[in-house]
C-alpha cells in the first residue's frame, strides 16, 4: 500500500515538471535556452488561483494560466529575438522580475506576505470514476489522475511526431540548427523562435496551474521551488528528445515523492529536501561525461 501511494504521488509530482520540460524542449529545439520557465510557472500558478476563485472553473483557470505564461513568454522572446538580449541574462532577469512583481501584488492588493488564500478555489477534478483505488499497484495513481496530467502525457506522446513530420516541426528544428539557413529558404526564423517561447510559456503556465490546483488550491511564493530549473535539467538530460526527457521528469518526480516520504519518516527535512536537486546535478554531470566520451571515440 505504501509503495502504491508513492507511485501515485510520484506521478502527480512529475506532471508540472513534465509540462514545463516539454515547453522548454520545443523552445530549445528552436535555439532558445529558456531559463525563465520558473517565472512562467509561478505566474501561471498565481493566475490559476485567482481565476479559479473568481470563476469557479478549473478549465478557465488553467487556460488563463497557460495564456498568461504564453504572454510572458512571448514578451520575453521579443527581448531576445528583436532587442538582442542575452537569453541567459534575460531569463535570470525574468525570474527575479516575476517573483518580485507577484510579491508586490500579494502585499499591495491582497495584503498578504507570501501566501494567497482565496475562497471557492475550484481544484482539478479526478477524471476516472471512483472505485479504482483497489487496482493493484496503480490503483491510487488512477484514482488521482487529473486532466492536466493526462494532457501532459498526451503532449509527450504526440510531440515526437509533431517535430518529425509537420511543417512547423521541421521549421522549428531547422531554426534551432541553422537559423541563417532557415532564413535563406524564406522562413521567418525570429517569429518561429517567438512562437516556441510562447509555447514554453503556455506549458509552464499549465504546470503552474497544476501545482496550484491539484490539491492545495492556494498560491505561495515558494510554490515552484526550482521546478522550472529541474525541467530545464530534464530536457538537457533527455538531449531534447521528448520520450527520454519524460523519463528524466519521472525520475525527478519520483525523487521528490521519495523525499517527502523520507521527511515524514523523521529525517532532517532541509537536508532530505536537497535530494532532487543533488540528483539533478549528478545527472547532468553524468550526461556531460557521456557526451564527451562519445565525441572522443
Amino acid at each position, binding site marked *: 500500500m505504501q509503495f502504491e501511494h508513492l507511485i501515485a504521488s510520484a506521478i502527480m509530482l512529475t506532471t508540472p515538471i513534465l509540462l514545463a520540460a516539454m515547453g522548454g524542449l520545443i523552445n530549445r529545439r528552436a535555439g532558445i535556452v529558456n531559463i525563465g520557465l520558473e517565472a512562467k510557472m509561478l505566474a501561471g500558478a498565481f493566475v490559476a488561483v485567482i481565476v479559479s476563485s473568481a470563476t469557479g472553473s478549473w478549465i478557465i483557470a488553467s487556460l488563463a494560466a497557460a495564456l498568461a505564461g504564453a504572454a510572458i513568454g512571448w514578451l520575453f522572446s521579443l527581448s531576445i529575438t528583436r532587442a538582442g538580449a542575452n537569453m541567459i541574462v534575460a531569463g535570470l532577469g525574468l525570474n527575479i522580475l516575476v517573483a518580485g512583481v507577484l510579491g508586490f501584488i500579494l502585499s499591495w492588493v491582497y495584503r498578504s506576505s507570501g501566501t494567497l488564500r482565496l475562497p471557492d478555489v475550484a481544484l482539478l477534478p479526478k477524471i476516472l470514476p471512483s472505485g479504482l483505488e483497489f487496482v493493484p499497484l496503480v490503483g491510487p495513481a488512477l484514482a488521482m489522475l487529473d486532466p492536466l496530467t493526462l494532457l501532459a502525457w498526451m503532449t509527450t506522446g504526440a510531440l515526437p511526431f509533431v517535430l518529425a513530420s509537420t511543417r512547423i516541426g521541421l521549421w522549428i528544428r531547422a531554426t534551432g*540548427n541553422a537559423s541563417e539557413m532557415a532564413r535563406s529558404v*524564406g522562413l521567418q526564423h525570429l517569429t518561429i523562435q517567438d512562437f516556441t517561447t510562447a509555447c514554453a510559456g503556455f506549458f509552464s503556465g499549465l504546470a503552474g496551474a497544476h501545482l496550484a490546483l491539484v490539491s492545495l488550491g492556494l498560491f505561495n511564493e515558494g510554490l515552484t521551488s526550482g521546478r522550472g530549473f529541474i525541467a530545464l535539467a530534464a530536457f538537457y538530460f533527455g538531449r531534447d528528445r521528448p520520450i527520454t526527457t519524460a523519463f528524466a521528469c519521472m525520475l525527478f518526480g519520483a525523487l521528490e515523492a521519495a523525499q517527502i516520504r523520507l521527511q515524514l519518516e523523521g529525517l532532517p527535512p532541509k537536508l532530505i529536501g536537497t535530494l532532487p536537486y543533488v540528483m539533478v546535478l549528478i545527472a547532468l554531470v553524468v550526461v556531460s561525461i557521456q557526451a564527451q566520451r562519445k565525441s*572522443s571515440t
Partner: protein
Amino acid sequence: MRALPSPAGLQAVGLRKIYGSVVANRNMSIATQAGSIHAVVGENGAGKSTLMRLLQGVERPDGGEIFVDGVRVDFTNPGDALRHGIGMVHQEFMIAPDLSLLENLVLGEEPVKRSWGPLSWIDWPTARTQGQALADQIGALIDWDQRAANAPVHILQFVEIIRLLRRGCRTLILDEPTAVLAPVQVDELFALLRNLRTQGTALLFISHKIGEVMALADEVTVIRQGETVFHSSVAECTADEISRHIVNGELHHVANDEAPQPQSELLSIASLNARSVNRSHTLHNISLTIGSGEILGIAGVAGNGQNELVECLVGLRPSSGLVTLNGIALSALNPSQRRRHGIAYISADRRHEGLSMQASIETNVVAGSHRTSPISHGGWLNRAAMRKIAKDRLQALDVKYDRPSDPVSTLSGGNQQKLVFAREIATSPQVLIASQPTRGVDLNGIAAIHQLIRDFRDGGGAVLLISEELDELIALSTRVAVIADGTIVGTVKAPASNLPLIGRMMLQGAAA
C-alpha cells in the same frame, strides 16, 4: 516526375554599386544563356561578390539594369530572384547539419497532402520521389536519409543544387564551388554541372582557378577593379590571356628556381603512428626528414591524413614515434614548448586556427609573443611596445591594412595569410609547417606567399609544405612525399619532371 526548368537567360547591363565612397562595381555587364556555363573570374576584391549580391537580389544596384528572359526586373530580396528562377549556391552551404538530406531538401517548400497551414503533415514519400527524380536527372547519388553533418561536402553541394532546381531555378550562380572540394569531388561536380548544361540550365560559375575555367566553361568574363574588362568564349582564348586580364599584366610567374642544396638534417620524424580520434584518419609508420634550406612537399588527395600529420607535428594530436628537431625530442612537448624550440605553424584553417577573426590585427600579429619582453612587462602588457612590434612585423611583410585596431576579418584573404606568416616567422623559427598556405588567396597574394616560403628556405629554415595544389608543390618543393591512406607511399626527387608518378601515387597509393 517534374521536368527540368525550360531554357532562360539572365542579363545584366552596366551595373553600378557604390558603398559610401567606395565604388564596388562601376560597369558590370554579363549575360548567361540556357545550356551554357559562363565563368566569372577575378581577384579577391575585384567585385565578384558584389556582382553576385546584385544578381541575387541581396542588394540593389545604384545604376544599370537586370533582365530575365528579356524582361527588366528589379529584385528587392533573394526571394524575388528565386521567383524569377535565379538561385545561388553559396560557398558556405545553406544546410542544417542536424537534419537529414531529405529534410534539408524540402525545407521552406514542403510537399503536403492536405494543407493545415504550419500544422500540415509533410508528405515524405512525395518529397523523396521529387528529390530522387532530380538527382537521377543530373546524375547524383544521394542517400536522402543521411544526416547532413555526416554527408561528404560535395553531396551537400548537390543537395543545394537540387533544392534550387526543385524550386524552379533555371539559372544557377555557383560561388567558387570547388574551393571546399577534394580533387575527385571536383570531378563529380563538373560531371554534374555538364549534365545540367545539357539539360538547359544556365550556369554562372565564379572561380579564380583558371584551370577549372578552361576545363569546364563555355564562356568567360574577367572582372578587375569593379569592371568587366574581358569577355570571350573559352574556345577562343588561352589561359595566359585570361591571367593577364585578371592581374592587368602584373602576374608574377610561378616557377621553380634553382633551389640551394639542403644542408644538415633539421627535423626528423621516425615511425610516427596516430590512432583515430573523432573519425580522424589513422597514421601508420610515417618517417620523414627535412634538412635546413629544404622544402619538403606533402602531396595527397584531401583527407588521407595530411591534417592529422600536421597536428601531430605541432603537438595538437597525440602520436607515438619519435620527432626530433636538431636532435631534441619534441614528442613529449606541448604546442607552446614546441614553438619555443623553433616550430612555426601556418594552419590550413585560417579562420579558426590561424587567426582570431574578431580580434584586432595587432593582437593577432603579436599573439604568442605576449609573454615575452618587451610586450610583457612584469606580467603587464605594454601597449606601446605591442603596437610598435605589430607595425614592424606587418610592414616587414607588406601587409595592407587600415588601422591596426581593426578586426582581422576586415583584411583580404591574402593579407590575412601574410599576417599569419608575419607572426609565425617573427620569432626566427627553424621549421615552418605550412598547411594549404594559399587556400582562398588571390593570384598576387599567392605569388607573395610563395616568395615568403622561398625566403624562409633561403635563410636556412626547413619547410614542410602540405598542399592540395600540385602546381604549388612542384613550384616550391625540393622533394615531394606522397601520403595516401595515412602513410607515406613514396618520396619523389625533382618533382617537376615526375608529375605523372606523383599523380599515380596519390590515387593508387603504394601500388604505383
